[in-house]
Every structure is written in structure tokens, then in C-alpha cells.
């Protein structure tokens, strides 16, 4: 079953020097449980495509269908609900909230989704154990290493049991060994049933995917 489909999707950014086409006529489908890597040189449109697939951005042309619903017909509120409950995001720079503990960071999306407190706490413990940080639940991001912060970010992304996990350069800020650990963790997330799309420069990380898409000048040139 297809989770998200892009049909002839383009994304154009108006710039003072003239419009810049970041994504050009991309047609793509991500199946449930699939592991897809998007690679390519800097500025080729990988992150923009990821944002489109994650309903964070809207295409300038073409259509995007998430679980059978045309995203362009949805309100901002409806897109927020999809992102909150059906999609997980992992960022290169983690973006954990520094004033919250690891557990509170993981609890936050669940609270926003209206999950009861007891359920949230149970799920948070379970997720922190899953990413190997059960003992670090009460630590703030400043007390964690880069790899640990990315693990918390993955736990946060999985908090509301998303069908699709989008990761933008998830190992970009980490050393090779730590990046390897994060890649293994993401493989495990995918193996447990969550569709995974990773944007990466790292060919080793890309090679772990079921399918690798290479982008150039906003187009998918190889898959």
C-alpha cells in the first residue's frame, strides 16, 4: 500500500534574481514499510523533496497524495495533524528542546496529539529503551552526546507511531562510528514496519536502503 505519492511535483522558489526550481516534475511513490534513500549533490533538491513528502511544504505544481488524500486540498491544521500522527521527522541538527529532558522531548508530540498522561509516560519509557537511552530519560540535551541526542530525536519522531519516518541527513553531524549506530537504529525502525525515507550524502548509509534515488538539478535521475 502506498503511503505517499508525488505526481509531476515541482517546487519553485521565487528569488530576487529570478525563480529557482528546486524540484522539477518528480513522480514518486513510497510504499508501506519501504526504505528509500535520496542522494545527490548539495542543492539538488533532496531536502525540498523530503519536505514535500512530509507535508511541510506545498508543491508549486503537480499533486501530492498522502494515504489517499490530496494534500493540496487540506488546510494547514489538517496537514499539521497528518505530520503529528502519521509522519515522523528526524533532522540533521536534532532540534531537541534544550529546556526539556529527553523524556519530555519524547512526550511532547504525544501530548500535542492528546494522548493520556499514563499512556504517554509508558510509551516514552518504551521508546527510550528502544533507542538504548532508558537510563538517560531525565537528562537534558546539553547533557547528551550528539549520537544520544539523535537517538532521542528518533524516539520523538516515533512517539505517535508514524507510518512514514523522514530523516534529513540524520548522520550529518555525527562521527562515523556514531553515524553507524544511528543507521543501524534506523534500519531497525524500518524493519519494525515504518516506511523510511532518508536524505543523505553518505553513500554507505544510502546503500542500506531498498531503493536509492539520485537527484540532480531537482530531478530524479537514477533509481
Amino acid at each position, binding site marked *: 500500500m502506498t503511503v505517499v505519492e508525488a505526481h509531476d511535483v515541482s517546487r519553485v*522558489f521565487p528569488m530576487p534574481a529570478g525563480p529557482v526550481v528546486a524540484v522539477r516534475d518528480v513522480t514518486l511513490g513510497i510504499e508501506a514499510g519501504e526504505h528509500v534513500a535520496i542522494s545527490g549533490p548539495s542543492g539538488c533538491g533532496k*531536502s*525540498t523533496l523530503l*519536505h514535500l513528502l*512530509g507535508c*511541510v*511544504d506545498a508543491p508549486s505544481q503537480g499533486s501530492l497524495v498522502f494515504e489517499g488524500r490530496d494534500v493540496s486540498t487540506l488546510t*494547514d*491544521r489538517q496537514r*499539521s*495533524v*497528518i*505530520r*503529528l*500522527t502519521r*509522519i515522523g*521527522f528526524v*533532522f*540533521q*541538527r536534532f*532540534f531537541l*528542546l*534544550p*529546556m*526539556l529532558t529527553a523524556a*519530555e522531548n519524547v*512526550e*511532547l*508530540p504525544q*501530548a*500535542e*496529539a492528546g494522548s493520556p498522561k499514563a499512556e504517554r509516560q509508558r510509551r516514552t519509557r518504551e521508546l527510550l529503551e528502544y533507542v538504548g537511552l532508558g537510563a538517560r530519560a531525565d537528562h537534558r540535551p546539553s547533557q547528551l552526546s550528539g549520537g544520544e541526542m539523535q537517538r532521542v530525536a528518533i524516539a*520523538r*519522531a516515533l512517539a*505517535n507511531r508514524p507510518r512514514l519516518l523522514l530523516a*534529513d*541527513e540524520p548522520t550529518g553531524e555525527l562521527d562515523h562510528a556514531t553515524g553507524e549506530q544511528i543507521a543501524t537504529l534506523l534500519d531497525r525502525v524500518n524493519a519494525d514496519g515504518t516506511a523510511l525515507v532518508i536524505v543523505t550524502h553518505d553513500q554507505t548509509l544510502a546503500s542500506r536502503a531498498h531503493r536509492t534515488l539520485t537527484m540532480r538539478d531537482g530531478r530524479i535521475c537514477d533509481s
Partner: protein
Amino acid sequence: MSALAFAWRGLVRQPARAGLGILGVAAVGALLFDMLLLSEGLVLSMRDLLERVGFDVRVRATMALPGSGPGIADAGRLTAAIAALPEVGEAVALGLGYAEIDRAGGRRPLAVDFVGADTSRRRVWTVTAGRDIADGHDARGGELLVNQNVASRLGATLGDVIQLRASCMHQTSALPQATFTLVGIAEFPFDTVRQMTAATTFADFGIACGAPGSADADMILVASAEGGDAETTRDAIARLRPDLNPMTNEQMVGLVQQSGLSYFRQISAVLMTVTMSFGMLLITVLLTVSVNQRLAEIAALRALGFSQRRVVLDVLCESALLVGLGGLLALPLGAALAVWLDGILKRMPGLPVKLHFFVFEPQALAIHVSLLVATAVIAALYPMWLVARLPIATTLRNEVIS
């Protein structure tokens, strides 16, 4: 985590900035609170002084302020006629004049304000030592009350015989000395800090003024009958003597306001607007800086599914917390400042001791809270707009590029 709790954690995250913001709002809020107290303070204080005595209508010959203008002739008979009206509970003639009290040792006589009023259930003064004056004039003369200033300057004690020479209601001819016995020390509501005041019965005031039984009154103080209201009483007196000018306390306050107190309201309105603007700018700057520093974080929250409404609410809650905590601190700070400023302003000459410029009333507190709520909302508008319009993807991309 609720938006309020989230905003609280955001403030605690940068305690120095939050602390400075709260202190800034406290300072601005204290000034705002004081301006609110000042805007109505004199009016409230004046009304309190007028009502404290227990009379709700004052009858004068003209609209001139007390102590000026023509007197009311044949006041004794008129007072009795007013007292007989069914709308009236009590009427008291009040004579105002000046007197010089002889002092021993060849010292210059002491100039005092001289008050004559019939003793009644409601007193124009409050006796603080000795007893009140009583009706009846015997061979030793009448009875006299003085305020503490007079007692101190004379070095007089209760029971002393006091000789005074009165000057009443524009009389220009020299009057003989009158003899009084000092029976008590009293506080007079409209006394200034250095004012010298002496009081006796209206009858003895008449004798001292050389018009026994027919002295002019400066005004007649009237208390409405039980259950009656001041307007009805005033109308009844106006019907009885259309040539006189009966005024309710409210009208008196209005008259005093017209004669200069409205400046304080205008000044406080201008200063309130300025302080509120400063408060708004302060909060807007703090929140805008805070939001700008957290743009990527907010964009990430939006990407994680936080709604536009939620992130906007976070900013509003942060503003509410800054203003709320600052506003709470502003109350004791404003109260202390009001006491200090009141002391300074009351040094102006000619002001009654019991008159205050800063008077607390619940309405001022309600307006203070409302203005702070408005400040919190208006100050948060621009940062809320920034957050609401935040392009998620562009912000995330810019963060990575930077």
C-alpha cells in the same frame, strides 16, 4: 505539556532575560498603577472628606467655594426651617471666620481659623482629647475646641481661659475680645499641616462675631433623612429657598474638580499612555528576540505536527507570563511608590492633611489588570505574527545552510 507550562519552561531557560523582562514590566506596571491611583485619587479623597462628616448636602448663598463669597443671613432661623423639612434628618449652620488669640508674655497674638457650628449627632470635627463643646454661654464665656497646632503654639491645657478677637464674614469693624474656656483638642478634616483652627458653637461664634443670635453662616450642612437621597434633599431645600445654592457632595466634588483637579487626570492619562507604550515595546522586543533565536526550533516543532495555533499560543503565554509576573510585582512596588509620592505632593501648601493624591480603590486594580492584559496581547501581536507566518521548510533549510 500545556502552552503555559511550555512557555514557563521557555522563560526559565533564559532566567536573566526573563528576570530583566519581569523587572521591566514591574517598573512600568508600578508607574501605571500609580497613575491610575493618581487619576482619581484627589476626587476620591475629597469625596471621602466630604462624606466622612456625615452630611450629604451643603447650602451656600452662591456657588463660591467655602470660605469665600457672601454668607447666609439669618442662618439660625433658616437652619431650623431646613431641619423641619421631611427630607432632612439634620441641619447644622457653619460659620467660618478668623480670630486672633491673645498670648501671654507680650508675644504677637496667634491667628487662627475660627469655626462656629452647632453641636449635633454629626460632628464637623473629631475630638481627640478632653470633651466636645456644649451649648450654653455663661458668665465665663463659651467653650472652645482647638486643633493640636493651636494647643502646642499656645502651650494651653484643658480648662485654660482663652481670649480671642474674631473677624467674621467680611466684617471690617473692630470687635471686642470674647472669652472662652478650652474644653478639648480636635481634628478638623480640612486642616492643612500648619493650620491653626479653633471652634465653638454657632451661638458663641455669633457672640464673638458681634451678632448674638443673628450671625451669618458660611454654609448650612444638611444630612438627608434616613432612607432619603441627597438629590431629593437638595431639591426640597431649593424649593424652600430658591435664592440659595444647595449642593450635594457629588456636585461639590465636581466644583472642586473644575477648579483645577482635572489637571491630575490629564497628566496621569498622558503618563499612563507613555508607560503602557514603553511596557508594550519592552515585551515586544523581548519576545521578538526570543522568537528570532528560536525560529529553527519552532519550525521543527511545526514539522513535527505542532499546529500554527499552538505555536502562536506559546508566544502569547510567554507574553502573559512576563506581564503577569511583572504585573504582580508592580502592585507592592506601586503601592510603596504611591506612599512616597503622596508624601512629596502633600508638601504643597494649603492642602488638607487628610487629602491624598493616591487613593486605592478596587476599580483601579481592575483597570490595572485589564491594561496589563491588553499590554500582554498587543505586545505579543508582532512575535505571534512572525511565528504564524513562519515558512517551515525555508526556515529549516536556512538553519542547515547557516
